[in-house]
């Protein structure tokens, strides 16, 4: 009896969605996959040590040894981009994972209990919405010192309401559906109904929202590193690279900032397009 809704939810969650991604969605998913592989195997792929200085070959143009040239201290730009993909992708991943971990239980409990609990949670979310993520991050960094951990925690708190709001709205709708009513009548517990049925049924929605959030978080996190408050130089990170390349722009060497910036734009594009396609495959304008 209880297996019936699960099967139905599996079908909704699985193949149907992936088939409707369209060309743009598939291209985005592929891009994300390639970037993830690069980040995973970065030390094996990078042709040079990303921190090795070569003061005789600063601002070198593209060559066989340095396909993208070198920066103001002769470090290989390609290697720095490849190694930099690790913190640049892992940071947003941690933020999104944390905000899902915080947001889902809050949203589901609130949607399930309704009444004063729900009102209190909604009010809390409203207040959190009023605190721009980047400001919360700067405040936390002022207290706990510069670095990725403060930034990650702050952004997770700031992005949690987005995940929670979408989930709560959907959970309220889902709760009224007959299968949930049937499960309740059969006496299944809150944890079992939500853990086994409700959350899996909302899975695709949560994944879509998390994917879109990933893009926005990446922009915020890169901005914090750009401000010098996140990942610290000389570590290779895309946000850091945009910042440390800025003085060289005025000397006519925009490469470092430019390449790192392009990597950020490509990645964010891929995540937002994929997120939109996952959320609403029929209405996204860029149908392939």
């Amino acid at each position, binding site marked *: 009896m209880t297996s019936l809704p699960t099967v139905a939810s599996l079908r909704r969650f699985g193949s149907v969605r992936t088939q409707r991604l369209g060309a743009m969605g598939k291209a985005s998913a592929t891009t994300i996959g390639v970037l993830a592989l690069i980040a995973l195997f970065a030390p094996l792929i990078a042709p040079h040590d990303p921190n090795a200085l070569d003061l005789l070959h600063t601002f070198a143009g593209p060559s066989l040894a340095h396909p993208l040239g070198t920066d103001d201290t002769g470090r290989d730009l390609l290697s720095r981009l490849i190694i930099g993909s690790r913190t640049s992708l892992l940071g947003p991943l941690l933020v999104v994972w944390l905000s899902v971990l915080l947001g889902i239980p809050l949203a589901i409990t609130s949607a399930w209990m309704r009444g004063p609990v729900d009102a209190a949670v909604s009010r809390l979310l*409203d*207040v959190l919405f*009023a*605190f*721009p*993520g*980047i*400001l919360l991050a*700067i*405040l*936390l*960094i*002022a*207290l*706990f010192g*510069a670095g990725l951990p403060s930034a990650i925690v702050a952004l997770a708190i700031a992005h949690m309401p987005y995940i929670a709001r979408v989930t709560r709205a959907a959970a309220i709708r889902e709760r009224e559906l007959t299968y949930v009513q049937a499960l309740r009548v059969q006496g299944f517990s809150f944890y079992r109904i939500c853990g086994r049925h409700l959350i899996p049924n909302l899975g695709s929605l949560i994944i879509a929202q998390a994917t879109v959030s990933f*893009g926005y978080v990446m*922009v915020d996190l*890169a*901005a914090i590193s*750009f*401000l*010098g*408050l996140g990942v610290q130089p000389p570590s290779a990170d895309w946000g850091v690279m*945009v*910042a440390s*390349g*800025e003085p060289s*722009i*005025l000397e*006519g060497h*925009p490469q470092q*900032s*430019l390449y790192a*910036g392009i990597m*950020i*734009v*490509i990645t*964010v*594009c891929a995540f*937002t*397009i994929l997120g939109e396609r996952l959320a609403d495959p029929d*209405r996204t*304008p*860029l149908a392939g």
Partner: protein
Amino acid sequence: MRIVSFAAGRLVGLAVTLLVMSVIVYGGLYLAPGNPVAVLTGGRPLPHRTIVAIEAQYGLNKPFFFRYVDWLGKILSGNLGKSIVFRENVSTLIAARAGTTAFLVAYAALLIIVFGVVLGLVSALRKGSQTDAVILGTTTIGIATPSFVAAILMISIFTLGLHWFPAIGAGTGIVDRLWHLTLPSVALAMAGTAYVARLTRSAASEELQREHVDTARSRGIPEPLVIRRHVLRNALIPITTVGGLTVAGLIAGSVVVENAFALNGLGSYLVTSVEQKDFPVVQAIALILVAAFVVVNTIVDILYALVDPRVTIVGASR
């Protein structure tokens, strides 16, 4: 009348939110490792009488609640404390820099509203055309372009390549300011413009398919009037809310852009103060920026109710 009670409700919500914000900003001082004096002074060795003065300013010898109320009272009467680095009143230091930030945000907001709505409308009216495809492509990239990446692109192209705009400084006088702040505003506005354009496109094209538009056309109402009265007016409902949020977001975004263009505004001062561990300044600027953000959001909410009277009904039942 309903709009008045709706607005009143929103204003109460605004006050509550601001109060919570101030507790977060103030209470943060006690979450940090070390004692509050060390956080406030950034761990600098200071003469005893300075420490006593700081303790008195922050009332550190009283219970938390009283300290907070004291602090809030001082803030509300305009006393934001003293900067630890400059030994000057925070309010003086901030006032000198607030103008640049306000100008930058207002300029960017204007760009977003004008270009976002126009691009979106053009795109919706020529759906499926080449123009539409170009706008869709650019806006997709625009949404994904962080302001600091847009900043370095614009400095490379317009300052170093074409020498059209200065790279740094905020300028003096209105015209000079406009000229100096054009690139920063465009960088700040880019993602928001793209977003509002996308939103306008989907809202307007939805309206274009509605029956009331067909009816208006069949009655021989001139097309420009149909667009303005029937399409744009209805499409404005989602645009106001999301567009308003985007504009409010510019206040936080200005922090990044000011740093990219080395502008002497609140945002760049905030980052400098974090680096210098000048905590009273960090508190004050964070509070001001958050307050501005919340106030703009409330204004948008009330505007939204004016554009769409149905909102107040939902608002009343909440």
